[in-house]
């Protein structure tokens, strides 16, 4: 992610808009990547409520893909996922593999 130079900043480095951290991508912190396996998902949304980085996209109460721009790869979602019939719907794989 490219950082802003001093000429691009508002005078006094004032923040002009709430929640503009959405423009700061933290996905590069990740060492492990969560992978969503749709057929094992029971749509319980635990991954969504427990995600510290709001990186689980939910549309119309249905779980969508991960937001890899922001996921820091902590693995809470994979651990808390109840899955279907003992099969987890989220797996962690090492980045770059």
């Amino acid at each position: 992610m490219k950082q802003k130079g001093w000429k691009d900043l508002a005078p006094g480095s004032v923040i002009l808009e709430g929640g503009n951290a959405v423009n700061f991508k933290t996905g590069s912190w990740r060492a492990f990547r969560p992978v969503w396996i749709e057929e094992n998902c029971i749509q319980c949304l635990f991954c969504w409520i427990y995600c510290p980085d709001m990186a689980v996209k939910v549309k119309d109460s249905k779980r969508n893909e991960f937001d890899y721009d922001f996921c820091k790869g902590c693995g809470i979602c994979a651990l808390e996922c109840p899955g279907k019939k003992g099969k987890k719907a989220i797996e962690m794989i090492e980045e770059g593999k």
Partner: protein
Amino acid sequence: MATGLKLKELSKKEDLFTHGHRMCSGCGAPIVVKMILLATDYPVVASNATGCLEVSSCIAEYTAWKIPWIHTAFENAAATISGVETMYRSLKKRGKMDKDIKFISFGGDGGTYDIGLQSLSGAMERGHDMIYVCYDNGAYMNTGIQRSSATPLGADTTTCPAGIAIPGKIRPRKNLTKIMAAHNIPYVAQASPSNWMDLMKKVRKAHEITGPKFINILSPCNRGWRSKTNDAISLSKIGVNTCYWPLYEIENGVTKITFKPKEKKPVVDFLKPQGRFKHLFAPENEWLLTKMQEEVDTEWEKLLKEEQCV
């Protein structure tokens, strides 16, 4: 209209605490903040004591907050929000504002148990209509894991390192929830992110009560607790099940335990996954484990009795 406390319904709400904040991977605090703001159906103004949450949610030209948010010094988060609340009451009285606004103050355990205690005590005593939320991770994690008065007995921190001289912190933690209850305020509660429904119910209830409210929430910190990044929720769950962190509320002096574990687990289950308690499992430190279990048991018994009293 209030949103039902169902994940499917809540997921339709806008995130008032956005991604892109710079909290560590697997931190408990953003989960706590997210749950509180999801449970809130009113426009809300927040103040934030210096701490992990404050410094990493608003760095340079980025902020993760979509609500009016005031950064305060370490010691005056409660004083700041009580000032804002007084201003709001004054504006309302003069007919310059008719909105129903709620006020929340966030503080870590350092900013609440230690440095901010006087301003918090003052705000509670003056009776401002506000909620103070303490996310308790049990040390000054932001500055490099120094002990606070919320650090549990036997924990290894950088200012009470476990070694030959001392086996970690030799003093037990302070029970702030009870100190707040002693202010005789209308609502005091203790919650954990692992029991999200319980946490959100408590926040909802607090919003409907007029007067000062205090909620103490366990917030695991994998850096300071020396645990894995993925166990914020599982650790807080064990903390609740071992009764190390009992979930209860005190409403107008009446204690109610909101969650009783089916089977009370030994406190060792909570300590084992955490590297900060690693030294307690050495043979010479066994007495600390016994002492810790005794303390947890005594507190739990006390709480059960308090519940029966009314």
